[in-house]
């Protein structure tokens, strides 16, 4: 087979696919054909590159040119200019927001500079639907090494030595979990991959499954070898169709090559993997709830102990790890625990993938070494706050996490530091807020999410969170009282203290952390009747400044509820009892006579 001289990598993640990356591929292929380059250029659809803000993204190799916001019609120009003539298409290059200069390769971008890609090592690099490409990147080598020469205890020791902790939220040491399940006595055991990613805005696991499904399959087989299981189950939400499709392809390819199935690599070890679909309930990310859902029962948690490692799926010992945790395993075994543990901080080793979202310039998926500061993530990788606004807070840990202020910007990110700061690692959602965000509304937003996602089993989560939400709602509606802040704290603490599972135990965190860090803002709402960031409509008033009003009647004519009165050429007046705060008058006024107070 003739080797291709150039590779065109097209991002095939869900985000870029939604922006027509499939059509881009078709367009590339047809132009390449018409230029008779099909023997020289290979077009590959990969997993996510991470820089979703700039998608769809195309990378041209070997010169590593990085094109952003590519449209299907751009393919022709890229082929004819770049592939044929070697001239990069300048207008599609990434422009550094600070220097305004074009940066042709990803290596030169701040977004990528501070990243170390372990879990995402193959995302945006290989064709996830070609097992050969995975094998070429040492794929299944770790599994081969384990089952051909190492005992399960050896492997577990290596994982323990690496210091890897669960990336799903809890941060439980992975090696220890494997060891416990290994020691459980039972004829049948199970390996479960938790792919029920549910944090708002998070898509780490989806991207790994879409971009590098084999790394998860390989890790599950290794885990199966270690704990003594011959069956793996991937619990994935049905609303991840692309990830499911890629997993199906990957499982079939692995089976065809004998890397899953009976007697893998002649070692006598049997392992196969099946998919289980979830209906997209956040609580099913909790491992006992996940197991019940897989069993066909209502997806709700049960009291632990017994832990799944003793009694899990169908009552058998079950090792549950999340996607990102698994994706780290083959690398650790290939490169060694020492290499892995050299990255990160004292008690948090390796890297962490974050889904960066919110009021930040570079929205996307990033992987940074543990110990990277929030400032580096927000300002260097994230490119700072959108539209030059002031940074206010960063929310980590999803709905279970907390909102950290600028005082924590220099905190190195790891499990323990985030907890000490009043938040948590969670599965890796990271949402940045700016000066326009009202922290009471943010707390309300997260609680609304938990409210919808609570399974309803235990009282504090079912009713307590509802009451918390109602109090927050009344504050944003301008009906709050000063004692509400104390009531919020009291109730939050009881909910944390008494809830059955992690969802309820952490659901008040956004409330407590915003009260802790932004109590002034709460006070402004309940004492002064003001929303400092101007988000809570009920606390706003539109007023007409008499001296600026010319009496043009434009506001009067546009007000949908007839709240504005006044004679022509005389100052107008807004009746606050009628005003619905739609803001039309504010937008229409040509004389800046309407003020928001």
């Amino acid at each position, binding site marked *: 087979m003739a080797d291709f001289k150039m590779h065109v990598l097209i991002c095939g993640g869900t985000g870029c696919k939604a922006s027509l990356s499939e059509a881009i591929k078709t367009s590339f292929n047809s132009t390449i054909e018409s230029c008779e380059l099909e023997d020289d250029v290979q077009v590959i659809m990969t997993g996510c590159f991470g820089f979703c803000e700039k998608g769809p993204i195309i990378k041209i190799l070997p010169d590593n040119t990085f094109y952003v916001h590519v449209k299907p019609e751009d393919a022709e120009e890229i082929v004819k200019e770049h592939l044929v003539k070697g001239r990069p298409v300048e207008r599609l290059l990434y422009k550094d927001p600070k220097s305004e200069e074009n940066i042709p390769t990803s290596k030169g971008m701040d977004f990528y500079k501070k990243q170390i890609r372990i879990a995402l090592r193959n995302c945006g690099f290989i064709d996830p639907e070609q097992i050969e490409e995975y094998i070429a990147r040492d794929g299944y080598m770790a599994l081969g090494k384990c089952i051909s020469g190492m005992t399960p205890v050896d492997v577990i020791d290596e994982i323990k030595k690496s210091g890897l902790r669960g990336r799903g939220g809890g941060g439980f040491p992975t090696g220890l979990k494997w060891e416990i399940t290994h020691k459980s006595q039972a004829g049948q055991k199970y390996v479960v991959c938790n792919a029920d990613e549910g944090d708002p805005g998070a898509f780490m696991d989806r991207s790994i499954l879409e971009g590098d499904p084999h790394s998860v399959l390989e890790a599950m087989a290794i885990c199966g070898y270690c704990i003594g299981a011959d069956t793996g189950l991937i619990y994935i939400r049905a609303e991840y169709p692309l990830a499911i499709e890629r997993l199906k392809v990957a499982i079939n390819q692995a089976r065809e090559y004998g890397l899953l199935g009976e007697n893998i690599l002649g070692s006598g070890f049997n392992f196969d993997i099946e998919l289980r679909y979830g209906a997209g309930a956040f609580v099913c990310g909790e491992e006992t709830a996940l197991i019940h859902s897989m069993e066909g029962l209502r997806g709700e948690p049960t009291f632990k102990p017994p832990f799944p490692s003793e009694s899990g799926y169908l009552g058998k010992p079950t090792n549950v790890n999340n996607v990102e945790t698994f994706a780290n395993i083959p690398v650790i075994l290939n490169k060694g625990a020492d290499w892995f543990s050299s990255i990160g901080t004292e008690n948090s080793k390796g890297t962490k993938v974050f889904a960066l979202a919110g009021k930040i310039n570079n929205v996307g998926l990033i992987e940074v070494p543990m110990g990277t500061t929030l400032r580096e993530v927000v300002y260097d990788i994230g490119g700072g706050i959108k539209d030059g606004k002031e940074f206010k807070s960063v929310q980590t840990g999803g709905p279970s996490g907390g909102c950290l202020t600028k005082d924590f910007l220099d905190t190195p990110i790891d499990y323990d530091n985030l907890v000490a700061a009043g938040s948590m690692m969670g599965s890796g959602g990271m949402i940045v807020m700016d000066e326009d965000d009202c922290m009471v509304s943010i707390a309300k937003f997260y609680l609304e999410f938990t409210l919808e996602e609570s399974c*309803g089993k235990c*009282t504090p989560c079912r*009713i307590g969170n509802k*009451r918390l939400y109602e109090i927050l709602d009344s504050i944003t509606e301008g009906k709050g009282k000063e004692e509400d802040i104390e009531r919020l704290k009291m*109730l939050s603490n009881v909910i944390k*203290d*008494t809830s059955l599972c992690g969802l309820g135990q952490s659901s008040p965190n956004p409330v407590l952390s915003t009260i802790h860090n932004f109590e002034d803002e709460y006070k402004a709402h309940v004492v002064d009747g003001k929303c400092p960031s101007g988000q809570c409509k009920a606390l706003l008033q539109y007023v007409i400044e008499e001296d600026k009003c010319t009496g043009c009647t434009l506001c009067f004519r546009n007000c949908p509820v007839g709240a504005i009165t006044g004679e022509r050429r005389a100052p107008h007046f807004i009746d606050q009892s009628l005003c619905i705060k739609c803001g039309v008058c504010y937008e229409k006024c040509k004389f800046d006579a309407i003020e928001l107070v």
Partner: protein
Amino acid sequence: MINLTIDNKPVVVKKGITILEAASSVGVHIPTLCYMKLDDMNIENKPGGCRVCVVEVKGRRNLAPACCTEVAEGMDISTHSIRAINARRTVVELILSDHPPDCLVCAKSGDCELQDMAHNLGIREIHYKGEQSTYREDTSPAITREIDKCIMCRRCEMMCNEVQTVGVLSAINRGFDSVVSPAFEMNLDHSVCTYCGQCVAVCPTGALTEVDETGKVIKALSDPNKTVVVQTAPAVRAALGEEFGMEAGTLVTGKLVSALKRLGFDYVFDTDFAADLTIMEEGTELLSRLEKFLGGDKEVKLPILTSCCPAWVKFFEHQFPEMLEIPSTARSPQQMFGSIAKTYFAEKLGKKRDDLVVVSIMPCVAKKYECGRDEFKVDDNPDVDHAITTRELAALVKLANIEFEKLPNEDFDHPLGESTGAGVIFGTTGGVIEAAVRTAYELHTGKDLPRLDFEELRGMEGLRQATIDFNGLPIKIGIAHGLGNARKLLEEIQAGKSEFHAIEIMSCPGGCIGGGGQPYHHGDAEVIKKRQMAIYQEDKNKVLRKSHENPYIIKLYEEFLGKPMSEKAHHLLHTKYFDRKN
């Protein structure tokens, strides 16, 4: 044994038990709401959902639910620290904040575990108010669901799914909207609900109650043109006293009769009489099937299954419609009574069936449904007009200003009030088959039974079996109470693995004494066991203890029916079953 500290007191408790059990063993009662355990009956509800039983364990990050946290060496537990009390009260306040404030008019008032809890915790104010869940009320022929009052304890769900394997009730929706309901919020009467009433029996609040028919009974009693006949089931006399503060297991047969007479019933009869009649029919049917089977008749189906229990009948009609020929065709005692009352007895009185109102007092809510079945009506007039529960009778007694405890003992009326011990034991698991054995043995062998107490058929085990020697012929008998246990036996039959000749099935754990219409046991299995002892005591007290010796039964056959399984008996005392799969 392990050492730990509970409320500052060092104690030694068994290993492997929960904090709740450990506390209880040293005299500390931790309040619970969702938790329920019927000792020795293999029934436990432990979802850990209500969070009322939380206690503080030193060194633990959060509070521990006592009902599902296992004790560990050196644990330092405080059940009433300010943190635990505050949390417990807040949790109950939260439940109350989503509960209708209907206590004054709620059917469960005075018998409600939530009400008790709020009282015991001294809750005088609900600090967190807000939206309340509202659902439509669902009324079926037997059970009313007012699920605004559901507190998600899941006891009913556990009974319906795990114990009864009926699978109608389960939690639906999520978060604040979650509630226990049939699938798709369909009505109970569209579901495969058997109306066994075990959900009602365990509901801590007024979310699940029986359909109240006391009003109809009062109306009938006050109608001068009606002759109102009442029958009372065997299990009622062993439990009614509890409603009036008497010790569980107190037999109140005489007071019961007296109360019914004072309420104005024209004739106070006994369902036990009809139970004797059932034995005559069912026992004869068993013998006839058995003799044909032993004679090599391949058409004959064995085992024969009892058919006294209406929930059980509805269960197999839904779940095992391909096995409709296996159960006995004999009607239940309630329906045999109604049928005889409105024919034989009406004739004796010289009245038309329309002039008679037959009321039954039952430990059961499914009986309300049973008496409404079309096959038990003649020209739209039901054989039994109204079936009320033990609890409803207690309400009527209170309404009629009767001081139950002070009532004298009175006797049932004749002719339908005479019964044998065999009829009495119908009220407990194992009783129907024991009664049948007493008669079938003598009819088959022509000899007197050497002993009447078949201990091998008695007990509380969910599934029991025994072989009775019918003078050289070993008869294999199976007993199941609880529909989940019944399902196991039916699946064996389906698989062709059953070796039984006869099987007794009762839907409720313990049999009718544990019925859904009985006074609430509030999770105390002792109550049910004491009722059982009372039933066997009543049997012992009887002079006649074999159904076929009941002189009024003999007379009934002589005067009216001919002989068991006669055409007339078939017409009046037997029934058929329907495929309700779809």
